[in-house]
């Protein structure tokens, strides 16, 4: 009963935040609401015993994302532009959501030992993490050792994304310096031309 109350409270809170975020047009409120959504989702992950995921969600979703969005807010207008609801995306979103709700019935019970995900490689990982690798946190041993290639790929994705974002931002912000360079170039060519004309 207690567990049910906690789950119901967190899910209801998530739904309320989502609905309020849809109706709000002030971007600052929207950023704070998305941070609150992430924090509530992190609490939900703790209830589901996924502490590593909860940790990441709280640090990235509620922390750094909110700060980055706030930093971006200083560059954009205060309010969202008013716009009508686009019919096609709305239909696709509602249809996908309805299909997902229907398919919930086919999912195995939460925590069921005979669920497909728990009978494939997971038993090897769980027993091997302690016996072969000697790391008590199974998440870390799967992330860094069993699935080392995936994590390498993720790190390279973060690396590539950062380089791309920094290049986009730097390409714009260098404009004043480039203009100064061009002015200097123009000035120097003018000097050369003047000297040539003088000589001619």
């Amino acid at each position, binding site marked *: 009963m207690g567990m049910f109350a906690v789950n119901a409270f967190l899910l209801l809170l998530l739904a309320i935040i989502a609905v309020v975020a849809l109706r709000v047009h002030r971007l600052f409120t929207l950023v704070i609401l998305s941070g609150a959504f992430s924090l509530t989702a992190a609490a939900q992950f703790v209830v589901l015993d996924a502490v590593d995921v909860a940790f990441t969600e709280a640090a990235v979703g509620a*922390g*750094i994302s909110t700060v*980055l969005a706030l930093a971006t807010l200083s560059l954009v207008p205060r309010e969202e532009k008013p716009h009508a609801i686009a019919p096609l995306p709305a239909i696709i979103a509602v249809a996908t959501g309805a299909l997902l709700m229907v398919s919930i019935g086919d999912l195995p019970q939460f925590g069921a030992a005979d669920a497909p995900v728990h009978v494939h490689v997971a038993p090897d990982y769980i027993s091997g993490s302690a016996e072969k690798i000697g*790391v*008590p946190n199974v998440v870390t041993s799967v992330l860094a050792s069993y699935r080392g290639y995936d994590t390498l790929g993720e790190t390279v994705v973060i690396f590539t994304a950062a*380089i791309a974002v920094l290049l986009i931002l730097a390409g714009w912000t260098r404009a*004043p310096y480039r203009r100064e360079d061009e002015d200097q170039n123009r000035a120097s060519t003018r000097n050369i031309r003047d000297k040539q004309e003088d000589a001619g």
Partner: protein
Amino acid sequence: MQDDPVIRVVAKVLIPAIMLFALYVQFHGDYGPGGGFQAGVIFAAALVLNAVVFGLHRARQVWPMRYNLMGVSAGVVLYGGTGVWSMLAGANYLDYFALKADPKAAQHLGILLVEFGVGLTVASVMVALFFAFAGRLTHIRLVAKTAAHEAADTDASREGDAA
């Protein structure tokens, strides 16, 4: 915010504690929740707090942008280099068992190295992105100032022509 003594003092107390907590999350990830991703973000949060409270300019003096760029690359190189090391030791890429004679110690070493690589990359990326976004405001002011100067220059030269 930079003039508020309460915020300044609290930030000064908090920033080292946040950094220490990030290192704990980084190197205790084998035993408890945590690891490179979370530690990197927490470490970045300390530097972002520094920038928010004491200003972007001073934060960039403490932690120049080139540190971020070096950190972003060094993390990936450390991760990939651990794989190359295991290849040089005669095993497959990222097979940590070859790193040391004792298998569990070898796995510990490998996980520690790659997690530190992840943490380095994530922390540097987060700080770099925050500096880049927050720095845009300064740059936009600079662009506006340059444009205003140029407009003033052309006006002055036109007046000179007229005279």
